[in-house]
């Protein structure tokens, strides 16, 4: 363990770290099933410091923090030392640890949906944490303090909300409640395990703000565990990157982001689609993380590393710093070559050359899919014995767009905005409740049953979760060939076609007889794409195709989608909540809010000059993986959650959360309240806002 040091590299005046983890190892299972989840991790956190631990799934980042909390199952074998304020936690009994947990160290978990007990009120669950550690506190006192805490984390009308059950809270509010529980006893250390991964970008931005506030109020040190480099860029003081159960790079946030010394970190940073650049190809990080059950000797990243030399395969390099930057450490034998500039970082992971330029093969830009005023309402029923309709869920409320052949339309918006319902309506190929859907110029309402089946060949879908959307009991060949069986293609043709498709998506056709669980996440999504392409469709509907994948895998899949579009002249409807990905792949973007499109235009226009306040807020909420930029920029934060789609809001339905509306003088607000804005053209984009030309929001943000 090195001396405690500050970010700048100067020796700190004898600060005792809050948390010192030294050579921590966690092993599950025995014998042949032994999985070394964490292998000798050492780090420290100083009081009030914000440490970001970054890594892909399976890198051991969560396991190591659970080991700190003493919450691993008893089957885990833990070695090394964990010292909290000088006290060795691994030697504490569970009763002693219980006194520390929730009082001195508290934790925020990933999925707020399942992290709160469904049968107790939120107030009760916060008060419980208080009562456990303060025996003198009365029940009323704890309840009152719980309300205070809810107010602190920004829950409106906290007195009433404290009485509510978790299922009555939205995801963002539940995570706020989790933070309230975590800060209840003024802890010294807060460990947040992927606290924003399950949330929308707008809510993620809110939660990160609340976490910063919580940190300032309690003065606690924060360890934030995440897979998203953007999340830690603006908040963290120091970064630790984990790979295959080990720390591979640590350092100040600026050092790690601007001068990464480990090829893995370089690859991670370069593989992220950025909001700034759109058209250049992403840099994929080939391969997959090694299995922790059977690690080969040498550097675990060696099989994926472009800089690999023979020495890498012999022994695992230790984490070490350089003379001038002792705190910036990397576990790579060639890191000195990288830091000294002998190897430029862009050469480590070169940007792959585009396969083809220009218009995709065999496309003429004519319309392949068009929606006109599509409406999908669901009745909301109430009553036990006799059902009566008490409202309408306006899931899709008049959506129109066109998709040209060879083009990509990005459909973005928060969850619950109607993106998925829209594409489900398209895929159904049936007469919509209102409006018109035309595929290849044919109105789908007029189709006969046989024509509809035939048309299904032309429009295929790739789903979000490649684990859940593929039948685990079918070999990959059958999975891919299934659409052909439906359309009555002969077995021999199926085999040929499947092999062709697997080749196309970058899978070895030899692997056709294997089962889905033998493939990695990225490979499985390729299987999903092959299955969609096997009928030679013209249109591919992509429902969040990369959101379940790790960043390093994501880039490869996006590049593949772009290549396929160029080779086969496909048209994509690309649904995603990750704006950077959409910016990267889409030609046109439609931003949806409460069942309507609020802004529609070319990707470049919408992303560079967003006109609708909602689009501005969405874009501004996306974290940028650049600490310098992230710290200086001011965000347009949205208040609250998406309103219920059952609410009948007169006038503009974004009004309740609109940051621009707040700035407008009263006489202008009147129009927002009374008149429902329809899409109109402003500078080549269509915007549904009365004051789209108003730059008040942009100006204030710039001034702040």
């Amino acid at each position: 363990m090195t001396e405690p040091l500050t970010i700048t590299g100067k020796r700190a005046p004898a600060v005792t770290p809050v948390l010192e983890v030294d050579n921590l190892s966690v092993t599950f299972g025995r014998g042949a099933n032994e999985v070394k989840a964490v292998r000798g991790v050492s780090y420290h956190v100083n009081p009030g410091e914000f440490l970001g631990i970054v890594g892909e799934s399976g890198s051991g980042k969560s396991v190591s923090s659970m080991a700190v909390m003493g919450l691993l199952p008893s089957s885990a074998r833990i070695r090394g030392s964990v010292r909290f304020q000088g006290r060795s936690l691994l030697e504490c009994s569970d009763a002693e640890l219980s006194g520390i947990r929730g009082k001195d160290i508290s934790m925020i978990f990933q999925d707020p949906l399942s992290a709160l007990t469904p049968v107790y009120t939120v107030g009760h669950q916060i008060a419980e944490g208080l009562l456990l550690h303060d025996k003198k506190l009365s029940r009323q006192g704890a309840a009152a303090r719980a309300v205070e805490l809810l107010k602190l984390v920004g829950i409106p009308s906290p007195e009433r909300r404290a009485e509510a059950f978790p299922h009555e809270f939205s995801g963002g509010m539940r995570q706020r409640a989790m933070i309230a529980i975590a800060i209840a006893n003024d802890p010294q250390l807060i460990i947040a395990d992927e606290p924003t991964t399950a949330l929308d970008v707008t809510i993620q931005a809110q939660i990160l703000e609340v976490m910063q506030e919580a940190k300032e109020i309690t003065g606690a040190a924060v360890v934030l565990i995440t897979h998203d480099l953007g999340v830690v860029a603006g908040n963290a003081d120091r970064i630790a990157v984990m790979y295959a159960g080990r720390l591979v790079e640590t350092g100040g946030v600026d050092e790690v982001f601007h001068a990464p010394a480990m090829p893995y970190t370089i690859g991670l940073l370069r593989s992220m689609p950025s909001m700034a650049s759109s058209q250049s190809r992403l840099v994929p990080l080939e391969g997959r993380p090694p299995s922790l059950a059977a690690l080969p000797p040498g550097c675990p990243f060696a099989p994926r590393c472009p800089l690999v030399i023979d020495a890498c395969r012999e022994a695992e390099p230790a984490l070490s710093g350089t003379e001038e930057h002792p705190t910036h450490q990397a576990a790579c034998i060639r890191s000195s070559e990288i830091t000294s500039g002998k190897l430029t970082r862009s050469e480590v992971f070169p940007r792959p050359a585009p396969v083809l330029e220009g218009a995709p093969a065999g496309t003429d830009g004519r319309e392949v899919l068009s929606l006109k005023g599509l409406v999908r309402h669901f009745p909301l029923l109430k009553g036990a014995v006799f059902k009566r309709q008490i409202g309408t869920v306006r899931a899709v409320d008049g959506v129109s767009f066109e998709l040209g052949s060879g083009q990509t339309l990005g459909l973005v918006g928060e969850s619950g905005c109607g993106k998925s319902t829209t594409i489900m309506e398209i895929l159904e190929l049936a007469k919509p409740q209102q409006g018109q859907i035309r595929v290849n110029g044919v109105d789908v309402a007029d189709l006969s049953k046989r024509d509809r089946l035939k048309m299904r060949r032309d429009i295929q879908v790739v789903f979000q979760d490649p684990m859940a959307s593929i039948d685990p009991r079918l070999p990959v060949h059958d999975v891919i060939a299934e659409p052909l069986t439906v359309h009555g293609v002969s077995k021999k043709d199926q085999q040929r076609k499947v092999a062709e498709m697997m080749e196309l998506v970058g899978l070895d056709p030899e692997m056709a007889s294997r089962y889905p669980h033998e493939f990695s996440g990225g490979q499985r999504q390729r299987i999903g794409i092959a299955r969609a392409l096997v009928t030679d469709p013209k249109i591919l509907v992509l429902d969040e195709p990369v959101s379940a994948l790790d960043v390093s895998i994501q880039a490869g899949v996006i590049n593949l989608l772009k290549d396929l579009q160029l080779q086969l002249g496909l048209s994509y409807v690309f649904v995603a909540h990750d704006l950077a990905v959409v910016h990267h792949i889409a030609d046109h973007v439609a931003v949806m809010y409460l069942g309507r499109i609020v802004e529609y235009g070319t990707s470049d226009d919408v992303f560079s000059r967003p006109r609708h306040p909602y689009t501005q807020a969405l874009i501004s909420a996306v974290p940028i993986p650049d600490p310098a930029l992230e710290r200086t920029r001011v965000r347009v934060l949205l208040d609250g959650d998406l309103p219920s789609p059952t609410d009948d809001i007169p006038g503009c339905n974004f009004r309740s959360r609109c940051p621009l509306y707040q700035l407008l003088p009263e006489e202008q607000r009147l129009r927002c309240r009374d008149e429902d804005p329809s899409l109109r053209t402003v500078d080549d984009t269509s915007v549904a806002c009365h004051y789209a030309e108003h730059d008040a929001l942009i100006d204030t943000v710039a001034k702040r």
Partner: protein
Amino acid sequence: MIGFVVKRFVNYFILTAIATLLAYVLASLSLNPAQRYLGRNPQPSPEVVTSILNGLGVNPDIPVLERLWIWLSNLVTHGSLGITVDNQQVTDVIFARAGVSLRLLIIGSIIGAVLGVVFGVWGAVKQYRVSDQLVSYASFTVGATPTFVIGVVLMILATGLNGLTGHQLINFSGEYTAGLQGNFLVLFGDRINHLILPTITLSLTAAAGYSRYQRSAMLDVLSADYIRTARSKGMSRNSALVKHGVRIALIPMSTYFAYSFALLLTGATVVELVFSWHGMGEYLVHSVQQNDINGVAGSVMFASILVLIAGTLSEVVYAALDPRVRV
């Protein structure tokens, strides 16, 4: 919330009505009430038999649906379930015997449920440990043993115990000692004494089933995120499991409770016969043996009303345990 319970109650009510009607039709079609009078000496004349059958409303010459209609109108207008072959009102017999059965059933099922929950939770928390294995094997053994065998084995054990101590410590024949004199306490104690063995028999079978379900429900909960949250607040493992785990693991059990109550009823029939209790279970068997259509229909109705009550109760319990279903 009330609407939810009312809705379920209406559903159960319809099911009860259907069960009763089907029972009446089935009994009418399969039982032969005239048979009772065939082997009599002196042989009653056919006219006499017909008039008796007509009096009972079970004459096979009248179409079943017509008889059902008459039976049903009697039930609705007079609250009468007809007359038994011994010329008693079926309702009177049921009222007399219901108390006997319910005493056994309610005590048995409550003890069974409590034991089942405790053993199930215990088994889940100690998964794969020796104590879990013991509980598992014990519940499999009990589950695989017919109720009457358990009853008889308990009787043998009790006899042995009585013989060993030289006193009549445990009584197990009938529901009370006939002709016993004494004040209220003595009589009450006597009844409790008679309850011991039948209750153990019933609760053991019930607990064996419950504990398996409770164990798997609890296992689901053990790995839940909210248990981890509770632990991260500083709760000890045991109190986190009890406060945050058991209550949620009980939610699916309240549904199982309704169905197992019906199963317990069949178990009770055997227990009543084994321990010579004159309860509803014994009455059902008796009625079938006597070719008593009204008696059979009446006892099936009694059973289905119990299921109706248990079902509604389980819905109330469900809603009380789980705020998510309260509307």
